[in-house]
Protein backbone atom coordinates (compact mmCIF):
# COMPACT_ATOMS: atom_id res chain seq x y z
CA UNK A 1 0.00 0.00 0.00
CA UNK A 2 3.07 2.20 0.49
CA UNK A 3 3.28 4.98 -2.06
CA UNK A 4 -0.24 4.56 -3.48
CA UNK A 5 -1.22 8.00 -2.17
CA UNK A 6 1.86 9.54 -3.78
CA UNK A 7 1.17 7.70 -7.05
CA UNK A 8 -2.41 8.94 -7.12
CA UNK A 9 -1.28 12.48 -6.48
CA UNK A 10 1.36 12.22 -9.21
CA UNK A 11 -1.41 11.09 -11.58
CA UNK A 12 -3.46 14.14 -10.52
CA UNK A 13 -0.49 16.41 -11.27
CA UNK A 14 0.00 14.84 -14.69
CA UNK A 15 -3.69 15.18 -15.49
CA UNK A 16 -3.66 18.86 -14.54
CA UNK A 17 -0.53 19.49 -16.60
CA UNK A 18 -2.03 17.66 -19.58
CA UNK A 19 -5.13 19.85 -19.29
CA UNK A 20 -3.07 23.04 -19.19
CA UNK A 21 -1.04 21.90 -22.20
CA UNK A 22 -4.20 20.96 -24.08
CA UNK A 23 -5.71 24.37 -23.36
CA UNK A 24 -2.51 26.06 -24.59
CA UNK A 25 -2.00 27.69 -21.20
CA UNK A 26 1.46 26.12 -20.82
CA UNK A 27 4.03 24.97 -23.36
CA UNK A 28 7.19 22.89 -23.43
CA UNK A 29 9.22 25.59 -21.68
CA UNK A 30 7.49 24.60 -18.41
CA UNK A 31 8.80 21.06 -18.87
CA UNK A 32 12.31 22.42 -19.46
CA UNK A 33 12.06 24.23 -16.10
CA UNK A 34 10.99 21.00 -14.42
CA UNK A 35 14.05 19.29 -15.85
CA UNK A 36 16.25 21.89 -14.16
CA UNK A 37 14.81 20.93 -10.76
CA UNK A 38 16.91 18.42 -8.83
CA UNK A 39 17.99 17.52 -5.30
CA UNK A 40 20.21 20.61 -5.12
CA UNK A 41 17.27 22.89 -6.00
CA UNK A 42 14.13 20.84 -5.16
CA UNK A 43 11.79 23.87 -5.20
CA UNK A 44 13.25 25.58 -8.26
CA UNK A 45 10.06 25.65 -10.34
CA UNK A 46 7.78 26.85 -7.54
CA UNK A 47 10.39 29.46 -6.51
CA UNK A 48 10.66 30.81 -10.05
CA UNK A 49 6.88 30.83 -10.50
CA UNK A 50 6.45 32.72 -7.23
CA UNK A 51 8.95 35.34 -8.41
CA UNK A 52 7.00 35.49 -11.66
CA UNK A 53 3.72 36.09 -9.81
CA UNK A 54 5.28 38.82 -7.68
CA UNK A 55 6.78 40.65 -10.66
CA UNK A 56 3.72 40.15 -12.89
CA UNK A 57 1.38 41.67 -10.34
CA UNK A 58 3.54 44.81 -10.26
CA UNK A 59 3.44 45.01 -14.05
CA UNK A 60 -0.33 44.44 -14.16
CA UNK A 61 -0.86 47.22 -11.59
CA UNK A 62 1.27 49.54 -13.71
CA UNK A 63 -0.63 48.60 -16.87
CA UNK A 64 -3.98 49.15 -15.14
CA UNK A 65 -2.80 52.53 -13.88
CA UNK A 66 -1.66 53.61 -17.35
CA UNK A 67 -4.76 52.33 -19.15
CA UNK A 68 -7.11 54.13 -16.75
CA UNK A 69 -5.44 57.53 -17.04
CA UNK A 70 -7.89 60.10 -18.34
CA UNK A 71 -5.44 61.57 -20.84
CA UNK A 72 -3.38 58.42 -21.36
CA UNK A 73 -0.69 58.78 -23.99
CA UNK A 74 2.37 56.90 -22.73
CA UNK A 75 2.09 53.92 -25.04
CA UNK A 76 5.84 53.51 -25.02
CA UNK A 77 5.84 52.80 -21.28
CA UNK A 78 2.95 50.40 -21.76
CA UNK A 79 4.98 48.61 -24.43
CA UNK A 80 7.97 48.29 -22.10
CA UNK A 81 5.83 46.69 -19.37
CA UNK A 82 4.29 44.32 -21.90
CA UNK A 83 7.69 43.31 -23.30
CA UNK A 84 8.83 42.39 -19.81
CA UNK A 85 5.67 40.38 -19.21
CA UNK A 86 6.08 38.62 -22.56
CA UNK A 87 9.68 37.72 -21.73
CA UNK A 88 9.00 36.39 -18.25
CA UNK A 89 5.79 34.58 -19.26
CA UNK A 90 7.47 32.82 -22.18
CA UNK A 91 10.42 31.97 -19.91
CA UNK A 92 8.20 29.99 -17.51
CA UNK A 93 6.14 28.46 -20.31
CA UNK A 94 3.00 30.57 -19.81
CA UNK A 95 2.33 30.52 -23.54
CA UNK A 96 -1.28 31.68 -23.62
CA UNK A 97 -0.62 34.65 -21.37
CA UNK A 98 2.41 35.63 -23.48
CA UNK A 99 0.26 35.52 -26.62
CA UNK A 100 -2.38 37.73 -24.97
CA UNK A 101 0.37 40.22 -24.13
CA UNK A 102 1.50 40.19 -27.78
CA UNK A 103 -2.04 41.09 -28.88
CA UNK A 104 -2.17 43.78 -26.19
CA UNK A 105 1.14 45.14 -27.44
CA UNK A 106 -0.30 45.38 -30.96
CA UNK A 107 -3.19 47.49 -29.62
CA UNK A 108 -0.69 49.65 -27.76
CA UNK A 109 1.43 50.10 -30.92
CA UNK A 110 -1.71 51.38 -32.65
CA UNK A 111 -2.31 53.91 -29.84
CA UNK A 112 -5.84 52.53 -29.38
CA UNK A 113 -7.04 53.18 -25.79
CA UNK A 114 -10.30 51.24 -26.09
CA UNK A 115 -8.53 48.17 -27.49
CA UNK A 116 -5.89 48.48 -24.75
CA UNK A 117 -8.51 48.46 -21.99
CA UNK A 118 -10.21 45.43 -23.48
CA UNK A 119 -6.88 43.65 -23.89
CA UNK A 120 -6.03 44.44 -20.28
CA UNK A 121 -9.26 42.83 -19.07
CA UNK A 122 -8.48 39.68 -21.03
CA UNK A 123 -4.93 39.68 -19.68
CA UNK A 124 -6.06 40.06 -16.06
CA UNK A 125 -8.56 37.24 -16.50
CA UNK A 126 -5.91 34.95 -17.99
CA UNK A 127 -3.45 35.80 -15.23
CA UNK A 128 -6.00 34.84 -12.55
CA UNK A 129 -6.69 31.54 -14.28
CA UNK A 130 -2.97 30.77 -14.67
CA UNK A 131 -2.21 31.66 -11.06
CA UNK A 132 -5.06 29.52 -9.72
CA UNK A 133 -4.06 26.50 -11.78
CA UNK A 134 -0.36 26.72 -10.94
CA UNK A 135 -1.19 27.13 -7.24
CA UNK A 136 -3.32 24.00 -7.52
CA UNK A 137 -0.45 22.17 -9.24
CA UNK A 138 2.08 23.09 -6.56
CA UNK A 139 -0.35 22.22 -3.75
CA UNK A 140 -0.78 18.73 -5.20
CA UNK A 141 2.99 18.48 -5.57
CA UNK A 142 3.47 19.38 -1.89
CA UNK A 143 0.92 16.74 -0.89
CA UNK A 144 2.68 14.19 -3.10
CA UNK A 145 6.05 14.91 -1.50
CA UNK A 146 4.52 14.50 1.97
CA UNK A 147 2.74 11.29 0.96
CA UNK A 148 5.95 9.87 -0.51
CA UNK A 149 7.67 10.59 2.78
CA UNK A 150 5.21 8.43 4.83
CA UNK A 151 6.91 5.39 6.37
CA UNK A 152 5.08 2.40 7.81
CA UNK A 153 6.50 1.14 11.13
CA UNK A 154 8.80 -1.88 10.75
CA UNK A 155 7.54 -4.83 12.79
CA UNK A 156 10.28 -6.65 14.71
Amino acid at each position, binding site marked *: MLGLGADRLRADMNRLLALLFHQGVLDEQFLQLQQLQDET*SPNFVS*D*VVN*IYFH*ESEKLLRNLRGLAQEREFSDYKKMGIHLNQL*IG*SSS*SIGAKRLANICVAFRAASDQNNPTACLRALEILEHEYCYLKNKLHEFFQIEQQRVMAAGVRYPIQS
Partner: protein
Amino acid sequence: MAFRMGNSSTKCSGSSKNCLATGNKFSVLVVDDDPVVQRIHRVFLNRFGFETQVVGNGKEAVDLYCSGASFHLVLMDMEMPVMDGPEATRELRGMEVSSMIVGMTSRDRDSEKQAFMAAGLDDCRVKPLTADIITSLLHQLNIKYQY
Protein backbone atom coordinates in the same frame (compact mmCIF):
# COMPACT_ATOMS: atom_id res chain seq x y z
CA MET B 1 42.96 34.52 -24.36
CA ALA B 2 42.45 34.79 -20.60
CA PHE B 3 38.97 35.29 -19.27
CA ARG B 4 38.13 36.23 -15.75
CA MET B 5 34.86 36.77 -13.96
CA GLY B 6 33.88 39.88 -12.07
CA ASN B 7 33.27 39.67 -8.33
CA SER B 8 30.70 36.94 -7.98
CA SER B 9 29.70 34.09 -5.71
CA THR B 10 28.12 32.09 -8.53
CA LYS B 11 28.51 28.34 -8.18
CA CYS B 12 28.65 26.12 -11.24
CA SER B 13 27.36 22.58 -11.56
CA GLY B 14 30.22 21.64 -13.89
CA SER B 15 28.24 19.74 -16.48
CA SER B 16 30.34 18.04 -19.12
CA LYS B 17 28.07 19.39 -21.88
CA ASN B 18 29.91 22.72 -21.92
CA CYS B 19 33.32 21.23 -22.58
CA LEU B 20 32.53 19.45 -25.85
CA ALA B 21 35.58 19.03 -28.03
CA THR B 22 37.82 21.69 -26.51
CA GLY B 23 37.52 20.66 -22.84
CA ASN B 24 37.25 24.33 -21.91
CA LYS B 25 34.78 25.93 -19.55
CA PHE B 26 33.00 29.01 -20.89
CA SER B 27 31.95 32.06 -18.90
CA VAL B 28 28.73 33.95 -19.57
CA LEU B 29 27.41 37.31 -18.44
CA VAL B 30 23.61 37.55 -18.29
CA VAL B 31 22.45 41.15 -18.65
CA ASP B 32 18.73 41.40 -17.84
CA ASP B 33 16.62 43.42 -15.41
CA ASP B 34 13.89 40.78 -14.99
CA PRO B 35 14.33 38.69 -11.81
CA VAL B 36 12.48 35.73 -13.38
CA VAL B 37 14.75 35.69 -16.43
CA GLN B 38 17.85 36.21 -14.27
CA ARG B 39 17.01 33.17 -12.12
CA ILE B 40 16.10 30.88 -15.01
CA HIS B 41 19.06 31.86 -17.18
CA ARG B 42 21.51 31.39 -14.30
CA VAL B 43 20.30 27.86 -13.47
CA PHE B 44 19.90 26.87 -17.12
CA LEU B 45 23.37 28.03 -18.10
CA ASN B 46 24.99 26.54 -14.99
CA ARG B 47 23.41 23.21 -15.88
CA PHE B 48 25.21 23.37 -19.23
CA GLY B 49 28.49 23.95 -17.41
CA PHE B 50 28.85 27.71 -17.90
CA GLU B 51 30.32 29.91 -15.20
CA THR B 52 27.52 32.43 -14.94
CA GLN B 53 27.34 35.99 -13.67
CA VAL B 54 24.21 38.13 -13.71
CA VAL B 55 23.78 41.91 -13.80
CA GLY B 56 20.63 44.01 -13.99
CA ASN B 57 21.33 46.55 -16.74
CA GLY B 58 23.71 47.53 -19.50
CA LYS B 59 25.71 49.96 -17.37
CA GLU B 60 26.58 47.24 -14.87
CA ALA B 61 27.81 45.11 -17.76
CA VAL B 62 29.97 47.92 -19.12
CA ASP B 63 31.31 48.68 -15.62
CA LEU B 64 32.29 45.03 -15.19
CA TYR B 65 34.33 45.09 -18.37
CA CYS B 66 35.86 48.43 -17.34
CA SER B 67 36.95 46.80 -14.07
CA GLY B 68 38.87 44.18 -16.05
CA ALA B 69 36.36 41.34 -16.13
CA SER B 70 35.65 39.55 -19.39
CA PHE B 71 33.41 36.73 -20.56
CA HIS B 72 33.26 34.36 -23.49
CA LEU B 73 29.56 35.13 -23.98
CA VAL B 74 27.24 38.00 -23.09
CA LEU B 75 23.47 37.45 -23.21
CA MET B 76 22.09 40.96 -23.58
CA ASP B 77 18.47 41.90 -22.97
CA MET B 78 17.12 44.70 -25.15
CA GLU B 79 15.07 46.92 -22.83
CA MET B 80 16.59 47.73 -19.46
CA PRO B 81 16.65 50.76 -17.17
CA VAL B 82 19.75 52.99 -16.83
CA MET B 83 21.37 51.63 -20.03
CA ASP B 84 19.56 49.44 -22.56
CA GLY B 85 20.96 46.56 -24.60
CA PRO B 86 21.76 48.44 -27.82
CA GLU B 87 23.60 51.21 -25.99
CA ALA B 88 25.55 48.75 -23.81
CA THR B 89 26.50 46.74 -26.89
CA ARG B 90 27.74 49.86 -28.68
CA GLU B 91 29.76 50.81 -25.59
CA LEU B 92 31.33 47.37 -25.32
CA ARG B 93 32.24 47.25 -29.02
CA GLY B 94 33.63 50.77 -28.70
CA MET B 95 35.89 49.37 -25.96
CA GLU B 96 36.98 46.71 -28.51
CA VAL B 97 35.35 43.94 -26.50
CA SER B 98 35.47 40.84 -28.70
CA SER B 99 33.22 38.61 -26.56
CA MET B 100 30.34 36.95 -28.34
CA ILE B 101 27.37 39.21 -27.58
CA VAL B 102 23.95 37.69 -28.24
CA GLY B 103 20.79 39.73 -27.88
CA MET B 104 17.82 38.14 -26.08
CA THR B 105 14.61 39.99 -26.78
CA SER B 106 10.84 39.67 -26.42
CA ARG B 107 10.37 41.60 -29.67
CA ASP B 108 9.92 39.41 -32.72
CA ARG B 109 9.70 42.05 -35.44
CA ASP B 110 12.60 41.72 -37.91
CA SER B 111 13.10 45.50 -38.00
CA GLU B 112 13.58 45.68 -34.25
CA LYS B 113 15.97 42.70 -34.19
CA GLN B 114 17.94 44.20 -37.07
CA ALA B 115 18.27 47.51 -35.19
CA PHE B 116 19.58 45.60 -32.18
CA MET B 117 21.98 43.61 -34.39
CA ALA B 118 23.28 46.87 -35.87
CA ALA B 119 24.52 47.87 -32.41
CA GLY B 120 27.18 45.16 -32.72
CA LEU B 121 25.60 41.85 -31.76
CA ASP B 122 26.91 38.55 -33.06
CA ASP B 123 23.40 37.08 -32.96
CA CYS B 124 19.91 37.91 -31.73
CA ARG B 125 17.43 35.40 -30.33
CA VAL B 126 13.82 35.66 -29.18
CA LYS B 127 13.09 34.64 -25.57
CA PRO B 128 12.72 32.15 -23.98
CA LEU B 129 16.19 30.68 -23.60
CA THR B 130 15.94 26.99 -24.42
CA ALA B 131 18.26 23.99 -24.37
CA ASP B 132 18.42 24.16 -28.17
CA ILE B 133 19.53 27.79 -28.09
CA ILE B 134 22.21 27.07 -25.49
CA THR B 135 23.46 24.09 -27.52
CA SER B 136 23.65 26.27 -30.63
CA LEU B 137 25.56 28.99 -28.73
CA LEU B 138 27.97 26.39 -27.34
CA HIS B 139 28.66 25.20 -30.87
CA GLN B 140 29.41 28.78 -31.96
CA LEU B 141 31.65 29.31 -28.91
CA ASN B 142 33.63 26.17 -29.60
CA ILE B 143 34.27 27.37 -33.14
CA LYS B 144 35.18 30.90 -32.00
CA TYR B 145 37.48 29.79 -29.21
CA GLN B 146 39.19 26.79 -30.78
CA TYR B 147 42.49 26.36 -28.96
